């Protein structure tokens, strides 16, 4: 997986990991604030259970501790690319639905979208340090916006934000795993191929 790590690459990665951890932490607290605002403005019940929403990357993962560094980064990147599209759709729908009536929610959505984009870029930087680099996005067609009623769209938005909040936690954990020095090597952090 990772080319033999030069000390500078290892330091660069560690720096990217710790900055990524801070970014994910900030993103998570903003997403939680956004969730509260979204639930209130959309008149939803905070404890409403939302079935798995099609097209929304699920943060839940089995045998998380056995994943390799590459798997972590690739799954994170795919998720945040998808969230970038989903949040853009939500923002568009919001503007169509409420125009300027509810700028607070619109601004909060736009702020989180910005952070998601920044985090996706951050993950790409980390993958650049690998010999393979990040997968390209060309040709990847965003999922079509499903035709849903207003209430279903609101629930879908709730599902998107909840999963994003979980992803933010998962990303923090993933990056900490990556920042860990892997056993036996003094400098290269946890990029071990096998657990």
């Amino acid at each position, binding site marked *: 997986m990772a080319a033999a790590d030069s000390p500078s690459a290892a330091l660069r990665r560690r720096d990217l990991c710790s900055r990524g951890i801070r970014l994910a*932490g900030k993103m*998570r607290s903003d997403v939680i604030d956004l969730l509260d605002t979204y639930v209130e403005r959309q008149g939803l019940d905070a404890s409403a*259970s*939302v079935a798995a929403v099609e097209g929304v990357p*699920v*943060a*839940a*993962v*089995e045998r*998380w*501790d056995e994943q390799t560094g590459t798997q972590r980064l690739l799954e994170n990147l795919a998720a945040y690319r998808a969230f970038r599209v989903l949040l853009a759709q939500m923002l568009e729908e919001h503007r169509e639905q409420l125009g300027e009536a509810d700028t607070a929610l619109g601004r909060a959505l736009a702020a989180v979208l910005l952070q998601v984009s920044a985090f996706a870029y951050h993950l790409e930087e980390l993958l650049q340090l690998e010999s393979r680099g990040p997968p390209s996005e060309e040709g990847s067609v965003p999922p079509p916006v499903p035709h849903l009623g207003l209430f279903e769209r609101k629930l879908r938005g709730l*599902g998107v934000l*909840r*999963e994003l909040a*979980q*992803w933010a*936690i*998962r990303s*923090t*954990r993933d990056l*900490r*795993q990556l920042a*860990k020095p892997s056993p036996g090597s003094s400098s290269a952090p946890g990029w071990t191929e096998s657990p």
Partner: protein
Amino acid sequence: DSHIQYERVGADVTMKCGSMDWDAAVTWTANGTDIDESHLNGSYLILKNVDLTQSGQYSCYEGSSWHLKYQTYLRVGTPPKEPVLMCRSNNYPKGFYCSWHLPTPTYIPNSFNISVIHGTKEMVCEKDVYPKNRCHIRYLQLFSTVKYKVTLTVTNALGKNSTTLTFDEVAIVKPDPPESVVAKPVPNNPRRLEVSWQNPSSWPDPESFPLKFFLRYRPLILDQWQHVELSDGTSHTITDAYAGKEYIIQVAAKDNDIGTWSDWSVAVHATPWTEEPKHLTTEVQITETTSASTSSFMPPPTTKICDKGAVVGS
């Protein structure tokens, strides 16, 4: 025939003497003691408004032959009330445990059954040998938005009750308190105390799941705690301690990203460094010897300044 008979507190109980007729001559005993005839209706034993003390072995003998015709063990108790259930993860991300108890005793045997559902999946709750009323579940998935639903059902011979908890994975994360808390004075620093501690040993991976800490401290003479939150590291130097005052110190822990604070650690006590009082005897002798040369000799004081009883202008 002999068997166990369960009855509720306050119930009226009628016992027949096996297959004996109503008008047969019989003798009833409770734990081997004859029962007064006033409790009999024919050969039936009547126990009104039973209470816990009436639990015991009841036997019925045929009048003349003293042949044992019937024997039962009466257990007086109550149906279970809604059990109290608590689930918590103190070793995240390995898993979580659930523990339960009954708010009031039932005085008769109860059996507990717990079911843990995550989405559509039933999970196994492995009973712990000790403590008895506890079992633990291993996380199969992490970072799930799907809630866990835990239902505990308690059953005994007199009734059944249950309780259900629904929670998110992150909501029940609560570490154990920090361990090995040590507080020490800092030499030559009358206002400092050095506090150190360790992650709770039950927390499996502090590197990927770092804990943050909350330290509280106060001099014993005051009730008001001072607090400081520490996002990393397992030590802290208190720099604003009152000189010479004994302090009580405790630490709590929380996962850096999720869950709730642990209980407070065991309290430790420490007193900041204080300067050793200089021995006044040496000073006193010097001043005396110089004055002696000009006047008659004065013996050195018998009480040394550092003796306990010595009172130095306070």
